[in-house]
């Protein structure tokens, strides 16, 4: 599974990227228009979509929204550097990761491979297996990568699922942000990198609070996060 779709209006950049990624062993398709890009993602079967945030016509976030409405295909957004808003909004809307332009192509490849590893991990456990992971009222179905909270299904992106899986496996213990980045994003955490924080915040919002005990995922300043076991549990 190494089909990649690049949605970016910079023709030259797309050409260069296509050459680079092909050399790295990927099959690359390119689209320069957001509207068409959204259609193509949903019609095709890509391992990853690289989406530019600033597109003419319908902008990158709109494409993101349309794709996410119907598909869980991993999406990596290219944003303008220093534009925090873009980064955070993109991650909250369901992008799996982001990379600011101008980027190091080696970094891009590393992130693509991380995504591949993550999504490849799922089908590796035989579909017939109903391996689940439960902590309190949250149940993860590792085969189908779906989540139930108190019996109610919750929509999570691929990264959010991985993040929750790590936290639940180590429920009650603090997991450092570096570790979370390695396990959930498949890459090392950079300085000034807020992606983990944004994903955790999204996760908190989607899971909801744990009765009166507050947040399910608690922050430990300067260290990381942990999933709080309900005191009602054994």
């Amino acid at each position, binding site marked *: 599974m190494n089909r990649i779709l690049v949605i970016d209006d*910079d023709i030259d950049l797309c050409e260069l990227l296509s050459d680079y990624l092909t050399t790295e062993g990927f099959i690359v398709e390119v689209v320069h228009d957001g509207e068409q890009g959204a259609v193509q993602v949903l019609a095709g079967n890509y391992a990853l979509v690289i989406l530019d945030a600033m597109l003419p016509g319908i902008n990158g976030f709109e494409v993101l929204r349309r794709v996410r409405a119907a598909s869980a295909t991993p999406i990596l957004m290219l944003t*303008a550097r*220093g534009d925090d808003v873009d980064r955070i909004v993109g991650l909250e809307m369901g992008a799996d990761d982001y990379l600011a332009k*101008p980027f*190091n*192509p080696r970094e891009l490849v590393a992130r693509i491979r991380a995504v591949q590893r993550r999504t490849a991990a799922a089908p590796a456990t035989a579909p017939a297996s109903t391996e689940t992971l439960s902590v309190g009222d949250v149940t993860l179905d590792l085969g189908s990568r779906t989540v139930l909270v108190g019996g109610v299904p919750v929509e999570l992106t691929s990264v959010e699922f991985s993040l929750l899986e790590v936290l639940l496996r180590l429920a009650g213990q603090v997991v450092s942000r570096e570790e979370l980045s390695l396990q959930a994003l498949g890459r090392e955490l950079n300085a000034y990198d807020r992606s983990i924080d944004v994903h955790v915040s999204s996760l908190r919002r989607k899971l909801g609070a744990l009765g009166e005990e507050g947040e399910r995922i608690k922050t430990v300043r300067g260290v990381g996060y942990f999933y709080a076991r309900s005191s009602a549990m054994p």
Partner: protein
Amino acid sequence: MRSLFIKILLSFWLAMALTSIAYSILALSTQLGQGSKLRLNVLAERRQLAGAMLAMFGRTAPVSYEREGASSLGRYNGKTAGSGETQAYLFDAAGRPLAPDKGIPALIQAVAAEAALSGGLKSGKNTKYISLAQSVTGPSGRVYIAAVGMEALPSWAVQHWQPIVRSFGIRMAISLLFGGIVCYVLAWWLTAPIRRLRAAAQRLASGDLSARVGAADGKRGDEVADLGLDLDMMAERIEALLESQKRLVRDVSHELRSPLARFNVALGLARQHCTSAADSYFDRIERDAGRLNELIGELLTLSLLESGAEQLVRQPLELDLIVAKVAQDANFEAESRGKNVAVIACEPLFVTGNGELLRQALENVVRNAVRYTREGTAVEISLREVRREGGEFAAITVRDFGPGVPEAALDKLFLPFYRVADARDRQSGGTGIGLAITDRAVRLHKGMVAARNATDGGLVVEIRLPITGDFTG
């Protein structure tokens, strides 16, 4: 008395109160005037009555006395005493009382004595008591002194001050109360829209560019409502200007960075297809591309700061949190180079301003420090409250263990593109703009930043920001 509401309330109320007092005093004096006129009349009548009684008594009393003796005199007193007020007594020519009545009022005795001395009608001087005495001749030819006395004013005519004061007081209280209520409502009605205008203006000033006064006051149709419309128009204009500013910066950023993005991928391709012999050259190209990118970022930030577009977003900020975050991130970066960043002192302090700007400002200083500090050392950051002329400030000091800066160059450090010594600086990275951004950002927050050399080597950069208010309630 800063408040307009208070000014309007008090001035109207004062006007009402003074008017009320004036009217009350006028009414009171009229009332008093009439009262005293009445009393004068009553007084005159009483004197006349007393005179008439004296005359009558003077004619009949000696006759009764000479015919029936002293006991008959008791009759007059009893009779006249029936009216409750007048008393009549008969004295001999020397002023000695003939009726041995107890308790002859001293005033009557006095006036009788006077008449005894000089004859004729004598009148007592006491204003509260009318006493008249006259010498009369009895049928036998003997001389007597007849005297009568009565209260100058009947009880109902006496001036009592208490009820007057009380009614005056009640009148004043009522008018002040109602006046107060009306004035309060009036002042409120006048100043309420001003409060709304202020609320909208404050929201605008603190960064909510969509804040508007709204048409709530449209119905008023007066100058205050017009002011509200003007404020809204101004807010529209400001919002539009700032949006177009931001869009411009975004577009410029995009235009400048797109070629760089292509550049990077092309470089990646070159590395892929060339032998490792070219590696060191590619590394240099990559480094300079990185510098170019950083420069673009900082120039854009600087231009945003210069234009003042960032000024509007102001919020209360916890400085200690910002310092901690910057230190944490910088430490992460520093560790990969064998250095450290540590916070050696931290107090919870609050300032008002733009969190992102201050974070960047501090970050630039800290990253610089990390760049120059010797391997194996730790950059020390401290946050403390200091008192100087001008008030209380939050002082953030960043101290490194590097080579320091020549004295002459210390205040030039914060100029854009200034380099202490070209060769070394270009090697260690940095664009020369970071500190200029810090300087500009800090000054926007009414603070200042300065550098000095530490006594035992290294540079100390101090950022000072005024502490605004106390948010800890």
